[in-house]
């Protein structure tokens, strides 16, 4: 993968380009046809709709709107009936005489409340879902998310995603997602295209996504489209609302722990709209209830505005700023959070060519103040990202996405700053790390026959770890060596250091990442799909703890840390039953990841200049079977998700010597869950009342328990078993919720809603961890279970004005 043969590299590019030009020549055969394009929006607030469909009735010709509500379809000259539809909205029908290129915009009217419940993951006409090669994708409408019972009364899209097959978390009190046995840092989380490095507030009790500011989200568990790169496990693409461009509107909610308020409306003489959404936990209430001097709170702010220059040019500006603030008595304080901004320019070249350019900034940082000892510890990651994406709608059976992106990173792994002259601490600054990650991609959506369609693409990624710092040189080039006498891994001997000048590269890597999937429609109600994807990941989150903590830092690939590279194979069967009232998805997957690092025993990562001395390169593999059965219509809707899976890793000693971690044997990753069952249901009684319920069962998380003890220095020392060779008890719980809408008048401006939720109804004490130690009074060893949430009732009032 190392770029050591420049000629070979360019030859490869040429070869691929040639291949694509053949393809284009093949599909651009002549026929008199015309193109229809435009946008689809919501009639009440003007929000563009992503994934709405425009079909020519009686044909298989159709198009789906992109993230900006844009569609384009090309058909032979003729008379047609257009069918415009979107899940949760009334369909539109319209006669069309296609004898020239045309631009047509549509507005769709949302269903009356009664049918609004019918919003599960399928939001495209079922025939399209069956035919489209897209697989391993979970899309959730924010309305569905808002109906699910939640803990502490705060709607949380990450917790809702965990109800889907193949998605878990690391237990209560931990943030983030684990997708198909992958680690948290293997997910690319995007909020309006900006990278979010830490998705949780207060250690996962809340997610950073304010449901009032979010329009939609899509989770790619596999089959990641070529336009995304940089993570090996999944992509979570979350998009903020654009803001109501018809009326000024206020929405908000008042809960026991936090409250939120969002304002939106038209600006720039109706040429644009804006959205400002804020959320905060009641300062410190959270912990003061327990009479603690420690305090924790969070707040966040979402901003979005857009301006339509003319019908072919539109600008968007979006921003996010979130922060957690913690205080531990008067001695320590800590804060951390993400901030991001994105300026986008949508440009429509012509009825078939759509483009978007984005300039994005993202940052995650944390600081810890040690007030009693007068110093501060700070660390951050900054990135500047420029992207250009284009989509060309060749004809009904061929669409091409292509584009380029470049991300410049600055990693500040930590610095120690005395805050007064009296501090006994010497200032310290770890070396700043810099890198440039670029990508080029092309992806085709290709309808080969009426029954067979394909999506295939290629991403080329290039990673340049930039100079401007010195790196240690080790004896025999080994940062970690095996001490065969003591049977432990130790830091290698430093011989000296190499200084890399600014402008020089420390190391460059490149990877070709092919992505392909195929769908074959067996009959009107079922189809099979198969997919393959390869992805490279160049930056890694360093975390040797059971749960990722806010103080973990990211590190780029370079001389000692190699890029992770994954291959995933998936096969699926999709079927609709009983007039599409029910649907079923079955998918199997097998995934391998090369260069997955793990940490040597006793590794120290915080404040560590030479990360390479604490890690060993390994590999991981995961495989599983996922089943999702949904009921899409009627008063009772919901789904049952079941996942049977395995996730393991192996870390050999390699050139460092020794057998490796766990004597070189495969061991479970912390995200291994044999069984994972989720049942989500909602019942619509009438206009006033509706109910929701979740039932979750999961195999316990792999953990490490002691397998012996001995007395040493007057204490009992626990000796621990091989890594992750034990498991916590199984996790299960039931949640219920009740929604009450007191307002009967549909025309009233003020619409209120009460949400009563009960989390963990039967008060199961699910272990977040079990720790082993000696009772300080009796001296006897004991196991202590920490259970975070028992039964938690909550009441929230939501309003819209």
């Amino acid at each position, binding site marked *: 993968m190392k770029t050591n043969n420049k000629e070979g590299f360019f030859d490869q590019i040429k070869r691929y380009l040639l291949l694509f030009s053949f393809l284009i020549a093949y599909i651009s055969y002549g026929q008199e046809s015309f193109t229809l394009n435009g946008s689809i929006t919501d009639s009440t607030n003007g929000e563009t709709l992503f994934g709405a469909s425009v079909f020519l009735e009686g044909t298989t010709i159709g198009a789906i709107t992109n993230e900006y509500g844009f569609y384009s379809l090309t058909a032979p000259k003729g008379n047609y009936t257009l069918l415009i539809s979107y899940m949760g909205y009334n369909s539109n029908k319209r006669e069309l005489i296609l004898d020239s290129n045309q631009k047509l915009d549509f507005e769709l009217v949302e269903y009356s409340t009664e049918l609004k419940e019918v919003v599960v993951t399928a939001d495209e006409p079922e025939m399209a879902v069956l035919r489209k090669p897209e697989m391993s994708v979970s899309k959730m409408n924010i309305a569905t998310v808002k109906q699910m019972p939640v803990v502490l009364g705060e709607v949380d899209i990450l917790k809702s995603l965990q109800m889907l097959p193949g998605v878990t978390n690391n237990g209560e009190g931990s943030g983030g997602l684990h997708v198909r046995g992958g680690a948290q840092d293997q997910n690319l989380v995007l909020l309006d295209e900006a990278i979010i490095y830490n998705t949780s507030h207060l250690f996962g009790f809340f997610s950073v996504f304010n449901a009032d500011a979010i329009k939609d989200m899509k989770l790619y568990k596999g089959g990641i489209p070529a336009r995304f790169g940089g993570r090996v496990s999944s992509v979570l693409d979350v998009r903020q609302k654009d803001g109501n461009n018809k009326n000024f509107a206020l929405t908000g909610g008042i809960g026991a722990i936090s409250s939120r308020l969002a304002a939106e409306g038209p600006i720039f003489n109706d040429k644009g709209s804006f959205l400002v959404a804020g959320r905060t936990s009641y300062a410190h209430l*959270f912990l003061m209830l327990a009479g603690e001097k420690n305090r924790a709170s969070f707040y966040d702010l979402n901003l979005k505005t857009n301006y339509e220059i003319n019908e072919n040019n539109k600008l968007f500006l979006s921003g996010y700023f979130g922060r957690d603030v913690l205080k531990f008595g008067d001695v320590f304080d800590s804060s951390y959070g993400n901030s991001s901004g994105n300026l986008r320019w949508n440009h429509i070249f012509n009825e078939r060519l759509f483009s978007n350019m984005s300039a994005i900034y993202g940052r995650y940082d944390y600081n810890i103040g040690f007030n009693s000892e007068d110093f501060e510890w700070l660390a951050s990651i900054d990135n500047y990202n420029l992207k250009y994406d284009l989509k060309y709608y060749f004809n009904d059976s061929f669409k091409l996405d292509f584009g380029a992106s470049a991300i410049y990173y600055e990693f500040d792994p930590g610095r120690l700053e005395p805050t007064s002259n009296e501090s006994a601490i010497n200032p310290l600054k770890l070396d700043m790390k810099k890198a440039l990650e670029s990508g080029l991609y092309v992806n085709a959506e290709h309808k080969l026959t009426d029954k067979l369609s394909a999506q295939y693409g290629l991403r080329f990624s290039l990673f340049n770890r930039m100079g401007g710092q010195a790196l240690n040189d080790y004896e025999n080039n080994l940062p970690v060596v095996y001490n065969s006498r003591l049977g432990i891994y130790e830091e290698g001997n430093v011989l000296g250091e190499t200084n890399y000048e600014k402008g020089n590269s420390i190391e460059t890597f490149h990877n070709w990442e092919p992505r392909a999937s195929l769908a074959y429609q067996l009959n009107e109600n079922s189809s099979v799909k198969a997919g393959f994807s390869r992805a490279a990941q160049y930056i890694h989150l360093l975390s040797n703890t059971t749960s990722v903590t806010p103080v973990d830092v990211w590190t780029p690939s370079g001389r000692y840390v190699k890029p992770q590279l994954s291959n995933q194979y998936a096969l699926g069967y999709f079927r609709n039953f009983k007039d599409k009232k029910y649907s079923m998805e079955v998918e199997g997957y097998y995934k391998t990841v090369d260069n997955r690092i793990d940490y040597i025993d006793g590794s120290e990562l915080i404040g560590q200049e030479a990360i390479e001395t604490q890690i060993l390169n390994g590999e991981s593999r995961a495989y599983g079977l996922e089943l999702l059965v949904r009921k899409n219509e009627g008063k009772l809707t919901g789904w049952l998700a079941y996942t049977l899976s395995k996730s393991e890793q192996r870390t050999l000693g390699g050139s460092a010597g020794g057998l490796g971690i766990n004597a070189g044997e495969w061991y479970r990753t912390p995200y291994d869950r044999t069984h994972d069952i989720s049942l989500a249901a909602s019942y619509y009684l009438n206009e006033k009342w509706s109910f929701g319920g979740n039932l979750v069962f999961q195999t316990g998380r792999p953990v490490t328990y002691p397998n012996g003890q001995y007395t040493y*220095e*007057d204490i009992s*020392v626990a*000796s621990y078993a091989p*890594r992750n060779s034990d498991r916590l008890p199984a996790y299960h719980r039931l949640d219920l919720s009740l929604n009450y809408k007191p307002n009967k008048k549909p025309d009233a401006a003020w619409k209120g809603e009460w949400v009563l939720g009960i989390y963990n109804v039967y008060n199961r004490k699910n272990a977040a961890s079990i720790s082993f130690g000696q009772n300080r009074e009796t001296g006897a060893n004991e196991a202590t279970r920490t259970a975070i949430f028992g039964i938690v009732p909550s009441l929230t009032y939501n309003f819209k004005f």
Partner: protein
Amino acid sequence: MKNIKFVILLYSSLILTISCEDVIDVDVQNANTRLVVEASLDWEKGTTGNTQTIHLRTSTPFFESDSNTSVTGAIVNVTDMDSGTEFLFVDENNGSYTTNEFEPILGHTYELEIAYNGEIITAQETLNAVPDLNIIGQSREDGFNEDDLEVNMKIQDPAGEGNSYLFKFRKQGELLPYFEEFDDEFVNGNEVDWYFEIGEDEETEKKEAFQPGDTVEINFYAISPEYLSYLRILINQIGGVGIFDSIPVEVKGNCVNETNPENYAYGYFRVTQVVKASYSFE
């Protein structure tokens, strides 16, 4: 410096605030029994350091507490590798092995040799000098919790890098000691302030903060960097590990089985210089 890892502990404490803890029964695996070597040759500054004891025991299943683990019948020797002097430790037939002739010399390297069950176990360690420990009094506001008493100390770290230290604190009348370790990575050559406070454990009430009238015994050791690495893991794992702690591991010491390397021993052979003090809170 009470290091940054401490903050992770604090993060856990926030979670604990809203969580509930209880002691439960858990089935754990049982590993094979191993020999445990507690060979702590500690030379108290200002004494001759001639009398030293080494303890040999066996490991047991994790929840077993009442079995007799003493190992008798071993032959235990320590050799000063710089002078060649050999010290024989006499079997007291209760798991203890004692000598009254040990000669500690700063900078010298010592080797432990144990012959037991037909196998030879060895370890090496170097003796380092300990700086003076000045107890400067007590306070409430300097520690982590403003309401709780702490004892304050000062240590002058010597100029050279790589000095490593261990504190062993014991509140008089309590069964178990407390350990803290540090090295001079961030404080090399500085005068280092240290405090010791017992954080009240409100929920379980197993830990009680210092009250006026309480006495704390303080042992302050200069240790080797290798022993520090060993202790870091061991001290981190005392009392159990939570979700924001490193994944726990088997702690491996420096006692190597020369005959059968797989049958390595737990514990450590350390040679240290120590200052001992005590402080009574007013």
